């Protein structure tokens, strides 16, 4: 099959390449753009480990062709920390609140939480749980992931984080 040109902005950097149309966005990111932060967990559109931001929407990059992202603005986990290495509030939240164990789901969780908090800067626990319902974690039991996102929301909103009573 003939290759086609594709152009997108990934983490603020313009990327151009020639690809086969059947190339999935996750493969493009990992194998051609060298960004291995987004993971392939299930490869069947269920687990969310491959979640990245595409034009401010969280998408499962195992279920998008790279060519569909032609001209798009992509953000991956590699684009979250500041240039000087300062962690994003979500990264900090996952660290402070122990929101990960093996870490496999974490890039997808953080990218999903990123667009969730942009749409809803002050989500309730229920809204967080519904918001991350397309992301599976086999380790944590989700409690600390919810707390990590609450921590990040508080930090972004400039208010002190208060752990809800158990």
């Amino acid at each position, binding site marked *: 099959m003939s290759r086609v040109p594709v152009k997108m902005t990934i983490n603020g950097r313009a990327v151009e390449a020639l690809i086969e149309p*059947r190339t999935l966005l996750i493969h493009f990111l990992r194998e051609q753009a060298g960004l291995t932060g987004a993971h392939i967990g299930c490869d069947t559109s*269920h687990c969310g480990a491959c979640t990245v931001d595409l034009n401010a929407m969280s998408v*499962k990059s195992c279920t998008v*062709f790279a*060519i569909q992202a032609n001209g798009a603005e992509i953000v991956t986990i590699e684009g979250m920390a500041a240039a000087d290495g300062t962690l994003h509030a979500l990264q900090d939240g996952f660290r402070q609140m122990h929101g990960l164990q093996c870490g496999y789901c974490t890039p997808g969780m953080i990218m999903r939480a990123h667009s*969730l908090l942009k749409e809803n800067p002050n989500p309730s626990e229920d809204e967080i749980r519904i918001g991350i319902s*397309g992301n599976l974690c086999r380790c944590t039991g989700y409690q600390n992931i919810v707390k990590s996102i609450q921590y990040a929301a508080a930090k972004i909103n400039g208010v002190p984080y208060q752990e809800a009573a158990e």
Partner: protein
Amino acid sequence: MIPSGFEYHRPNSVQEAVALLAQLGEEARPLAGGHSLIPVMKTRLSAPEHLIDLAGVSGLKGIRQEPGHIVIGAMTTQYEISGSPLLAETLPILRETSLQIGDPQIRYLGTLGGNVANGDPGNDMPAVMMCLDAEYQLVGQSGQRGVRARDFYLGAYDTARQNGEILTEIRIPVPPRGHGYAYEKLKRKVGDYAVAAAAVILTMTNGKCTMASIGLTNVADTPLWAEAAAQALIGTGLDHAAIANAAAAAETITDPAADGRGPAEYRTKMAGMMVRRAIARAKSRAQN
């Protein structure tokens, strides 16, 4: 998993898309949100040689009001449907249904057009469209035609859409103000298709049901319009007996597959249960 190779086309207009479909024939498939098509391409259950991406086609997105109707462009996403103030006011059942489809990531990309054109009996919107008596606008090289949702589904993955046609928009008659509605879906987990689901709209006047319509999801090889079940409600106060009659009438038209979602008998019973719950909730929401 890597799909087999294909050529990618990105037309800008409906005319261009339809011309491409006509020219490329059987081997060409429209691509909308890709969230039904790409998974089956990855497993190679489907291997189209050409994909016609509708993302760049102008005029296929958006929600507008016409006298007596709401018109939704085929490329409008579930996310856009669940967030529309116009739909919240006129057709709240669409928000309730779209929020039960897949998960947030899937709703950002999955479109209404793809959901109703796909022909999978597991899709949630087709039964709702049957319930609402929606009409699908299909455009082919020889012109445009409307097909009612109630006439569209012929079998699993078999619809009245011809190969060369594109679904452009969905026209939905607006139910009366104050109508009751509910979409009740039993599923094993978030992101799963229904074990059974029921869509209900109804109106109440002076304590009596004056209009009712019921659609069923994933309990036959097509979505079902449960005409007799709805008829059993008309003129009643939606008391226990009327609801039981409707549920029984709905159960008799089901013919579910036995699969991971349960044995056929169970799914038939669950269809009845979803009808009961949906009627009760629609009743509680209807203004007299």
